[in-house]
């Protein structure tokens, strides 16, 4: 073996890497919140509506699920750029992740809505609840419970997917790592440390989700 590992510069950069890890978490979390809201909307449209609106929602969902996430990011970057529409790398990644999350979550929600029996909705309406009340108080809580684990997975997926930011110039954890690695040429050492940071982030998310589930679904 003809290679000397240099770890010192990596540890010197560690505070910057951790700072960038926060940015990773931030963009993943925001894209998740937006993804849940839009995903809910898309699934309701696909269930209840017909015509062009329903078609648009379906196109969104199927494109998000059937093309590579990286291609989606390129589209929000140079693709929209061709029309003279420009966003910062942060927004490109945020929009790409949101687009993707919403598509996948919409399918999960659709499955969740399908699992709530119609009889419950009729019962709620016959008790005098409005349609809105029925949805927010009866249906959605149950759906959220059904899609809770898929949602956790999607959050993990969003964190992992945000690493593609490095290819569109976004300095989240991977982008920052690449930036440092490109100055000291120690690609392996930097990315090894970054891999460990991702692993820890994912474990923290899964752990937090389990704790939250214990509180939320106690009954």
């Amino acid at each position, binding site marked *: 073996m003809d290679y000397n590992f240099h770890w010192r510069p990596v540890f010197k950069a560690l505070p910057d890497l951790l700072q960038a890890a926060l940015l990773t978490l931030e963009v993943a979390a925001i894209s998740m919140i937006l993804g849940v809201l839009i995903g809910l909307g898309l699934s309701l449209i696909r269930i209840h509506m017909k015509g062009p609106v329903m078609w648009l929602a379906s196109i969104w969902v199927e494109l998000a699920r*059937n*093309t590579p996430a990286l291609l989606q990011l390129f589209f929000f970057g140079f693709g929209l750029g061709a029309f003279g529409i420009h966003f910062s790398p942060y927004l490109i990644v945020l929009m790409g992740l949101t687009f993707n999350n919403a598509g996948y979550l919409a399918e999960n929600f659709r499955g969740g809505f399908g699992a709530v029996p119609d009889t419950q909705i009729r019962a709620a309406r016959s008790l005098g609840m409005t349609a809105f009340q029925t949805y927010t108080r009866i249906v959605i809580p149950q759906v959220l419970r059904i899609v809770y684990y898929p949602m956790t997975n999607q959050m993990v997926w969003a964190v992992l997917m945000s690493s593609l930011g490095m290819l569109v110039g976004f300095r989240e954890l991977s982008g920052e790592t690449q930036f440092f690695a490109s100055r000291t040429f120690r690609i392996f050492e930097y990315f090894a440390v970054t*891999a460990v940071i*991702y692993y820890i982030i994912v474990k923290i998310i899964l752990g937090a989700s389990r704790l939250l589930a214990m509180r939320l679904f106690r009954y």
Partner: protein
Amino acid sequence: MQPTETFFSGFAPHDLWFLGEAALRTLWLSLLAISIGSMIGVVFGWLLSVSRIGGGFVLSPLLDIFRSVPLIIQLVLFYNFAPIIGLRLDAFDAGLIVLIVYTSANVAYVARGGIEAVSQPMRRAARSLGMTYWQDMRYVVWPIGLRAVFPAWVGVALGVMKDSALVSVLGYVELLKASQILITRTQETILILAIAGAFYFALSYPISLYAAHLEDRWNQ
């Protein structure tokens, strides 16, 4: 004095051929990764289901790493690590190996789910009919478990097909890399992104529809 060469040129018909070749490379890379990775993954899944210590405490955390670190980081790490230990791998080899490991880690949990989806009473019944362990695996667990997790497996396989686009970061000219090359040469950004997207979509969408159709039929 002007240089005698020209450096850029528009999108020409033979560029479609260039994209087509790259698409075939994407297809070949994904097929290899999915088939080899799935076979290894099924063995891993079986190990996970039968061995509490070997599977649960050794194999599972190991496989978990590949599901908790972004694929792009795995690719960059392995591609830069292989030469350090003296392996001469080109971008295709390195990408394929990482994709195989990634696939097998994901398939392992799907396969374990499939094995555990077959109820214990049914398996005891099979054994009490005189089936050997492997006969039970082959004629009871395999068909029932496969039905239970087939959609999940299709999901993993399609995911790997789409994720194979990331091998482009190693410089391997698969579909996405070919698109990037053409975009910077011809600036037909939208046209080329659309062609590449259409290819992935045309591959992924029918398969996912078919899987959903099968799932519906089996659930009836």
